[in-house]
């Protein structure tokens, strides 16, 4: 039985350096992994999942150190082994699949050269064998044009395909263990399915053990035999997948399970003759010679939320750029309260600019790190409303209270001193500072943990009821749509394929694309992926639009 254990971690402690102090990130976790077993590690960001996964390779990121415990891989103590010995294991017997394949493939080398690097350098195969093997694995993971795709550079291959190519690369030395670090988080639901299918088939075919790190419960339910829930660097709960899903014992686990229950208050239908706040009329737009939007029309009424959904590249964000005037349309027009807006934002009046505000996906990069919160919010207050001095400070305080942040505590801070959810709240306050009628929310919750995201959705919902705001909610996450939307616009390839009230959209019959989107959202049922793949194979449907 003991021989069966591939990885044995005991009391692992890892510290991270903040200023001059070492603060604990992992506070003594035990982990056992049998050969061929898939272990799911879940938790919110900052729980220490990735750190734990990397520690299984005897690796810590710069500014971190292993301060205690032991990591035994196949009987070898990694914390005491020399760097050269650990290097000999990495890539050969323990491989890693990173979150963003687009960032983790070297842009300067062809995929196949990156595939063959590890086998050649670890003397597992020579270059020719490795290249043949690559083509073979690409075929098994159902990449399109397996004979040719390896000779492309990373930027020439789509995100989902890259992620599969990275899984193939991890398999190149037929390792005993693969660490999957959020491999599908950056992908669309439809693309996620094919990556999940590829990972599962790879792991099954070669009997590889795996640690699957994710914050998405439904995903981990498909992949893992056993699940460990982490929080603040400590183990909360550990159980077999089915037990964990049906009968979680800890409160924290239960709260994670229940998080998708939020539903915004339903709003009354707008009157038939009501003038929409924002209205797109047959908008075409293009980036240079490349057309991106084709005849897009939809309305957004006062006090209502329109969710715009679709995969990346479907034109959701481009529609937002057209509304804000950042990208003048080639034809069609944007009406605001029934009046046409000048296509280019430079020709819009200050008042027209004030009425449409934006909240961005990455609050980290959307806030100037060198400005204090009171200046970030105070600037639009001064610019749009002309308030100065005490009046401006008063307004900033009001806004901070509105987003449930204590003005005395936060007004003087810099964005770097806030958590992700707090930064996103500041993003909301900055949009509200202009006193707008309409706000574009561009994937505002997709970079956040589920509990935090739910808080943001609740806040947005409350503000909408209190201030009568109209939202355009861009997202690829259908759970968010279910939670907050009044109406849904489904976009694909720059066209609106279906639109209508939320309840109708989630009720069959669907447009085939809407159907594909809806059926691709992972469910908590551990058999969901197997069933779905069987069903799609039976009906001869493509896995995703990329394949179609």
């Amino acid at each position: 039985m003991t021989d069966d254990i591939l990885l044995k971690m005991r009391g692992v402690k890892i510290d991270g350096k903040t200023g001059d102090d070492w603060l604990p990130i992992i506070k003594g976790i035990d982990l056992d992994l049998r050969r061929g077993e898939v272990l799911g590690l879940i938790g919110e960001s900052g729980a220490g999942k990735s750190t734990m996964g990397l520690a299984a390779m005897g690796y810590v990121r710069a500014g971190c150190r292993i301060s205690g415990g032991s990591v035994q891989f196949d009987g070898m103590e990694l914390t005491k082994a020399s760097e050269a010995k650990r290097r000999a294991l990495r890539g050969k017997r323990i491989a890693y699949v990173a979150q963003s394949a687009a960032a983790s493939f070297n842009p300067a080398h062809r995929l196949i050269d990156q595939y063959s690097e590890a086998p050649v350098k670890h003397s597992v195969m020579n270059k020719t064998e490795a290249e043949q093997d690559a083509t073979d694995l690409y075929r098994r993971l159902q990449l399109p044009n397996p004979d040719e795709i390896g000779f492309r550079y990373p930027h020439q291959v789509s995100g989902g395909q890259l992620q599969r190519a990275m899984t193939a690369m991890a398999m190149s030395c037929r390792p005993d263990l693969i660490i999957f670090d959020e491999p599908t988080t950056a992908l669309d639901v439809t693309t996620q399915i094919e990556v999940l299918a590829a990972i599962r088939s790879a792991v099954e075919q070669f009997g590889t053990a795996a640690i699957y790190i994710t914050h998405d419960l439904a995903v981990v339910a498909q992949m893992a035999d056993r699940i460990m829930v982490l929080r603040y660097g400590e183990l909360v709960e550990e159980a077999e997948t089915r037990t964990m899903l049906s009968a979680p014992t800890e409160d924290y686990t239960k709260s994670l399970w229940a998080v998708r229950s939020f539903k915004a208050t339903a709003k009354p239908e707008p009157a038939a003759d009501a003038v929409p706040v924002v209205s797109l009329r047959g908008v075409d737009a293009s980036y240079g010679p490349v057309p991106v939007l084709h005849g897009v029309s939809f309305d957004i009424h006062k006090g209502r939320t329109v969710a715009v959904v679709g995969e990346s590249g479907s034109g959701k964000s481009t529609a937002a750029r057209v509304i804000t005037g950042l990208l003048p349309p080639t034809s069609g027009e944007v009406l605001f309260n029934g009046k046409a807006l000048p296509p280019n934002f430079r020709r819009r009046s200050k008042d027209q600019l004030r009425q449409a505000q934006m909240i961005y996906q990455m609050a980290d990069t959307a806030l100037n790190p060198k400005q204090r919160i009171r200046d970030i919010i105070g600037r639009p207050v001064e610019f749009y409303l002309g308030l100065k001095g005490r009046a401006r400070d008063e307004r900033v305080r009001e806004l901070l209270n509105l987003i449930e942040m204590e003005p005395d505590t936060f007004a003087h801070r810099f964005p770097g001193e806030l958590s992700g959810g707090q930064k996103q709240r500041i993003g909301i306050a900055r949009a509200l500072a202009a006193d707008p009628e309409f706000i574009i929310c561009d994937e505002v919750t997709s970079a956040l943990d589920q509990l935090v995201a739910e808080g943001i959705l609740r806040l947005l919902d409350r503000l909408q009821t209190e201030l009568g705001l109209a939202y355009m909610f861009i997202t690829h996450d259908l759970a968010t749509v279910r939670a907050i939307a009044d109406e849904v616009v489904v976009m694909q390839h720059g066209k609106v394929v279906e639109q209508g009230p939320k309840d109708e959209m989630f009720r069959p019959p669907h447009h085939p694309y809407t159907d594909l989107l809806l059926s691709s959202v992972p469910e908590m049922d551990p058999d969901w992926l197997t069933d779905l793949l069987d069903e799609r194979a039976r009906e001869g449907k493509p896995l995703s639009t990329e394949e179609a």
Partner: protein
Amino acid sequence: MHPIASMALKRLGLGLLTLLVVSVIIFSAVEMLPGDLAQEILGQAATPETVAAFRKELGLDQPPVTRYFDWLGGAVQGDFGTSLASKREISDLMSSRLGNTLFLASFAAVLSVPISIVLGLLAALYRNTWFDRMINVLTLSSISFPEFFVAYILILMLAVGYPFGLVWVLGLIGLWFLMEGLGSFRAGQKIGRSFSVLPAAFILVGAGLIANVVFGWWQPQMDGVTAFPSISNIAPGTPFWERVERSFLPALTLTLVVTAHMMRMTRAAIINLLASPYIEMARLKGMNPWRVIVTHALPNALAPIINVVALNLAYLITGVVVVEVVFVYPGLGQLMVDSVTKRDITVVQACCLIFAATYILLNLLADVLAIATNPRLLHPK
């Protein structure tokens, strides 16, 4: 046509346009110099008639625009006119000088580019260690001294003061290492393991040599012996290896002057990339640190490095006046300085135009190379 080729052609066209603008600026700048050229050459004693006749002979009675186009038309065909001072064809005068300058610049480039890139890579690999600090201090010191000072130190070390000058300088470097080492030892820092051998060797050799000079254990008769000549008198017939030997000191001076810039850019560009996910990926594939830097970071850092190398190569050709003067090297820079003092304006114009063309050409080359080494641009979707 391949996008790179059409891009290169477009840049070449722009470069030519820039050169045209520069030629206008050079011509007008010379035009605006105070005083009359013919008067200047003939001296105060000349009669107005002789001056007028001389002006006519020089073509100075023509309007500036006509003269500009005459000059430009000649320059395009390689004919820069005749020198006012020596009456010789400028193209004859310059061709051997230009050859010498290019020889010296290439010599310095062959030394400095590989040295600075390898040092930059090593400094990135052993960043924040002893070795990194040593490289930084040495290259920064050599760039901080004026060129003529570096040149005289080298002459002291390797020519007139050889071998004791060399001993003193190496000894001083050794002493500095000793103090650095003691300092970091007392501060409780770990001395970089892999490279503590090198400074230690320096300290030993340096201390030994200084002791030898002080105590006079061993006094070889070295009068008149030099490692390299301090005057680089080369003539058109000088054989290649003799040229190399005679121009070694100026080339070494230039190398010391340009290395810091290229080395630090290489180091910074590499370190900038070390936090990238694909670098972490390479480490997690078990690649060794040197391979991570050379095959994974370097190809992505080429664009800034190429640009700095091009700037420094241009400097090697156009900025060597002082070094040429110190070593009496018969290059273009010296010709230009001589011509300025002699008010030989046509030669000055020609030199300026050639320097401008060098700058433009090298920067153009850098742009094209920076794009050609970027697979995103070389292999579009």
